[in-house]
């Protein structure tokens, strides 16, 4: 399976500033969240990236970049009609190949030498199908994520056959249709914000967008669900953690996680302890 392109969506109303937030990376360098995402992409061996942005944002994005970056193409989302519509704008960019998709309001911390995106792309290349990264998440967080339902792939570790995607389900709904064998009670496999998708997704998204009534928006989860009904779709748990930098204290927690996994771990820990002792 050819995976040479990546698409990052950053056109959401409250999202456009998020990738431009600065954090200190594992090596102690000050960088933007977007830089870190691009590191993920290049770590996966991909050197062409499309970023979907709000109109007029391209300059800000370009100015925020530091050092070597992959080849970037910006797509402006005029007349926005939702997340699914944003992704659809980069259809031609992918040349009919499978692609890596990342959301711009997440930050990833890998627990191995391989980036999270690289781990995912490896699985997709091996299995030759769409794969979404997932993370077991407590039910009280369901209101913030898309969730998969399915079953473990026999004789494979952390790999699941997906038969259902639901966006932000209530635990009542989740318990009835999204329980995956092997998970702890009250835990569900929530989307990680990283997907490798086959080009079929664009056909499904296009159909969805065409059927939209005025004022309606296309989300991605519905089309992912259709894709799972159409062809083989897997989900995998990665050796890493995602942090939603768009929620309250999200950036702070992401920063702490990055710092605690990097060179300044002892210093940050010491500062934290001191902070705790003083308050």
């Amino acid at each position, binding site marked *: 399976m050819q995976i040479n392109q990546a698409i990052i969506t950053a056109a959401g109303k409250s999202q456009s500033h998020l990738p431009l937030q600065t954090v200190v990376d594992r090596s102690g360098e000050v960088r933007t969240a977007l830089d870190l995402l691009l590191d993920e992409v290049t770590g996966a061996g991909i050197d062409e990236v499309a970023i979907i942005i709000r109109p007029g944002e391209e300059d800000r994005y370009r100015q925020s970049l530091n050092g070597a970056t992959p080849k970037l193409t910006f797509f402006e989302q005029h007349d926005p009609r939702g997340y699914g519509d944003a992704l659809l704008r980069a259809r031609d960019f992918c040349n009919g190949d499978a692609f890596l998709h990342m959301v711009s309001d997440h930050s990833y911390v890998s627990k191995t030498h391989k980036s999270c995106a690289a781990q995912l792309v490896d699985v997709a290349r091996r299995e030759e199908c769409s794969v979404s990264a997932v993370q077991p998440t407590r*039910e*009280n*967080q*369901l*209101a913030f994520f898309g969730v998969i339902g399915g079953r473990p792939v026999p004789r494979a570790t952390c790999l699941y056959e997906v038969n259902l995607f639901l966006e932000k389900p*209530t*635990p*009542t*709904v*989740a*318990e*009835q249709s999204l*329980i995956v064998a092997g998970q702890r*009670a*009250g835990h569900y496999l929530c989307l990680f914000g990283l997907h490798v998708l086959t080009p079929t997704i664009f056909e499904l998204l296009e159909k969805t967008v065409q059927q939209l009534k005025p004022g309606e928006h296309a989300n991605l989860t519905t089309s992912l669900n259709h894709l799972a009904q159409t062809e083989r779709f897997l989900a995998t748990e990665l050796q890493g953690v995602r942090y939603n930098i768009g929620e309250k204290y999200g950036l702070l927690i992401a920063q702490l996680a990055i710092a605690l996994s990097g060179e300044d771990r002892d210093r940050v820990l010491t500062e934290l302890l001191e902070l705790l002792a003083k308050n």
Partner: protein
Amino acid sequence: MLVKNSTVGSTTQRTPLIDIICSDDPAVRNLSLDEHCAALSREQLLAACAELDLFRRECHNLYQRVRALFFLYAIHRFHLPRQLQGRECGVIPFGGYENLLARRFSEAISEFLAEQVRSGPSITLSSALATAYHRLAFQTLADQVRKSVRTVKGNQWMFRTGHPEDLPLRIRPDLLVIDGNGQYPVLCERTSVRMDFSHSGWSDIFFLGMDFPEGARVINASINLAVKGRHSRPEPPIETALRVIDEPVLRLTSIDLDVTADVRSMSEVYDFARDYLGLLKAAVIASGLVPPGMEGCDLGIEAVLTKLVGPGRGLEIVSRVNDIPKGSRLAVSTNLLGSLIAICMRATGQVSQLTGALTEDDRRIVAARAILGEWLGGSGGGWQDSGGVWPGIKLITGSIANEDDPEFGVSRGRLLPRHHVYSGDEITPAARQLLQDSLVLVHGGMAQNVGPILEMVTEKYLLRCGDEWRARHDALQVLDEIATALKAGDIERVGKLTHRNFAEPLQKIIPWCSNRYTESLIEQCQSRYADDFWGFWMLGGMAGGGMGFLFAPARKVEASDWLEQTMLLTKRELENSLPFAMDPVVYEFAINDAGTTAELKNDKSMPRGYYELVVPALLRQDIQSLSPARRRELERVGQLCRDNEPANNELAERLLDRILPGIAKKQAEIAVTVESLLAENGFDRIAHAHIREDLLGGRLGLSQNRLPATAKIEDVSADDIVDARFTPPKGLVKTAEDALAKGQVAVLTLAAGVGSRWTQGAGVVKALHPFCKMAGRHRTFLDVHLAKSRRIGEMYGKYPTHIVTTGYMTDAPIRAAVNAIEYPGSVIVSRGKSVGLRMIPTARDLRFAWEEMPQQLLDEQQEKMRQSVRAALLGWARTAGECNDYVDNLPMQCLHPVGHWYEVPNLMRNGVLQKLLQDQPGLRYLLLHNVDTLGAAIDPHVLALHMTSGACLSLEVITRRIEDRGGGLARVDGRVRLVEGLAMPNEEDEFKLSFYNSMTTWIDIDRLLEVFGLSRGMLDQQDVVDEAIRRLGRRLPTYITLKDVKKRWGNGQEDTFPVSQFEKLWGDMTAVPEVDCQFIAVSTLRGQQLKEQAQLDGWLRDGSAAEIEKLCRW
């Protein structure tokens, strides 16, 4: 059969009873226990019990364990006692009894069995074992059903969510769209109720559906209702509303129960009995808004609301039931719960549809939550009860549990059944219309507790009692035929089938589901409409409340009017005998083809009746203290009242009625009536004042009822009693037979009380309750007593005079009944001349009754409810004023009889005895008995024992069984006497006593007069008689008791209040030194009393009813 017994781990002979329990072959599994045990000897039964007990301890399969427990219960209750003649007396270990009360049933059983090993089997011990096995079986069942409810997918998370920070629900954004007036939209849900064609012999009991899914089948229809003469057209009778408000409170309002409250703390949400909002609170919890896992989280409700609806906001939930009275048998409360849960789940996105009808998956999760809500509220319905949430007519069936179900491996069936909604092709619109054109749906006015019936059904199912098991299959056949008739559009046939269902299988399984009222209505319908009366239709658990009568469509309208009148007239005839909660009503109905539906009301209007309830309270507040939204809502209501729209004029009128109610006049009327009743019935105001003073001063009270702690209570020895349980010597009986032939004996039936326990304080005349069918028709207690005297009269040629004592409440109805009964002898009514006025109890006595006196611990949820009710009652007692007169009820319910001791002196005081002795100078003996001692009859053997002893009083005692609480025969400080349970200085003392007081007393009239200091000739001297009675009365203790009294209000609603009253009791005559007493041990059959209707089934099944019938001539 040799099988490997996996639980014991050895190869053993599996006994036939265990084979019945474990077999996969229905032919073996469905064998009847009774038929199997009929031929077994005592030793074989005891051996079977030992094996069953071992099996139930080691068996891992819940349903096999439960069946073994019921087998053990039935053997100890029905089979062993027949084989234990001569081994009646035994001792019940007090420790075992304490364990029983504390719901430690297994420990109780172990103690009783240890005693059985020590002292051998006895009827007494078997009664204790039967009770313990029975309760353990039901506890095991209830625990399992509750566990299943918790493990239903979609319910589990609520038990894991323990803190508001964990709450995963959020209000749907649609409900947060605020308008220019600061008002949020109102989500309104309208729900129908369910009407069942057949429940196949109560097969909708959860346990039956889970154990016998093949036999769990119900057809029911969702219907809209209108009360004839009150509403214009049928509408969904349940309406609920939900909206966001601008105050951080949970505002709950029940329009029909006339109550609203702002809940501010989490603990209030779980306090169900604090007010009438228990059902709304259960819905809030079961829908996950405040999940059950948060119970005990000591925070304000604001913490939850902040998560759910946002900071500074709250939720308001309103319910309204459209004037449908309680006891309608249409599952109104379950469907109301379903409606409330549905609206809460819609609002938080837990079901897919915000408005419109629900999908099948949504309905199933709502039904599962409704079951959870019922459990939380300490009640329980059947699995078909949420039927109003579904549309149209449907077949609901149990389903076999498969691997994906949490029930798999535990029970054969699933907790939730399958619903098949009949399409228009299956049951045509024409057939549905014909059903509506022929069925007259009514509420007969009776509101009864169906709980005991459901327990009986479960028990009989598990024991596979032969007749009942066949009837269950018959009921299944009837259901199939009803479905066929509906599909064929043959509604006349439906009527015939529902009629047969009621007359045959249902009454075969549970005879108590019918009553004289219902049967009288059916007879009148048959007589008036002949072939145009298509049949009777029992709704729900029992007849008397919600019922249906099918007529040819051409006559339906006329029949509906006629039935309304006929029900009212029949009710008037029987209202003293049966517990009616209200006047009967006739409904108009229509099948609801939508099920529960919701709409988002952008006009922000709340359900009818809401403003009348809340506006008066708002007007009493400072306008500045109201939230902006409430101020604007008041302005809006003001504007509506000023409009000239007819609907708004009506609102203005109703509002005015609420603001200026006419209550003062009504209270005055009640006070006058109580006063006049007291004056009529010989109320002693001075004595009443003394009792109040003593109560307030702590000189009287429940704790003061007891004998001094130093009193020595011992069991009697064999020499202290005369045994009448064996064949008398020849010649002894002859004396008595001669006395009977000479008319020396009369019967005195005590019927002055109303039998509070019999109808839980409903205030009907127990003597006139048509409690059981004998010789083909319902008979009252009085019927049975007179039938026994009739038989004696036929045998000895002289019909004994029968005296029935009455009180202020029972006198007129009993006189009317006596006049209507044909009895060849003389029947005299002796009216009581003493009455008391009930008082608000003291908090001290309430606490003593609840904390110091032994009582059955209830299961977890019911116990919580009870504690909550008790807290509310303590508050009521303090607010209403301890020891104040209790006058806030119907006048008759405010008075009380003053104890059965007075009933004999009353004969002297009211001239009955004097006249009787003048008319029958040869009369020498009276047989006094309680109205509920059905076996008490003139027995020449016992009479002879009394006559030959020369005693003043001969009191009959029976071997104690565990249910015989309330005193007994004891040696107290050396004197053999009866001791009331109230007077026992120590609970444990009662368990030393072998004999229980049946109250049946043989009286030597002349010797009794001597005790009073009187003679036959002095009975005409009223002053002397009065003084003699007063003198002896002063020597007897006065007991304070708490009685439950029902107060009815609204549409069949009832509240029960404990009230204080005093009594003097007949048994204390045995403590008077100059009364020469003899104690005669008689058979249990002769002395047992029927105190509660739940006893009836056992009484019928153990052969007691048949034996009583042998004593009667009708």
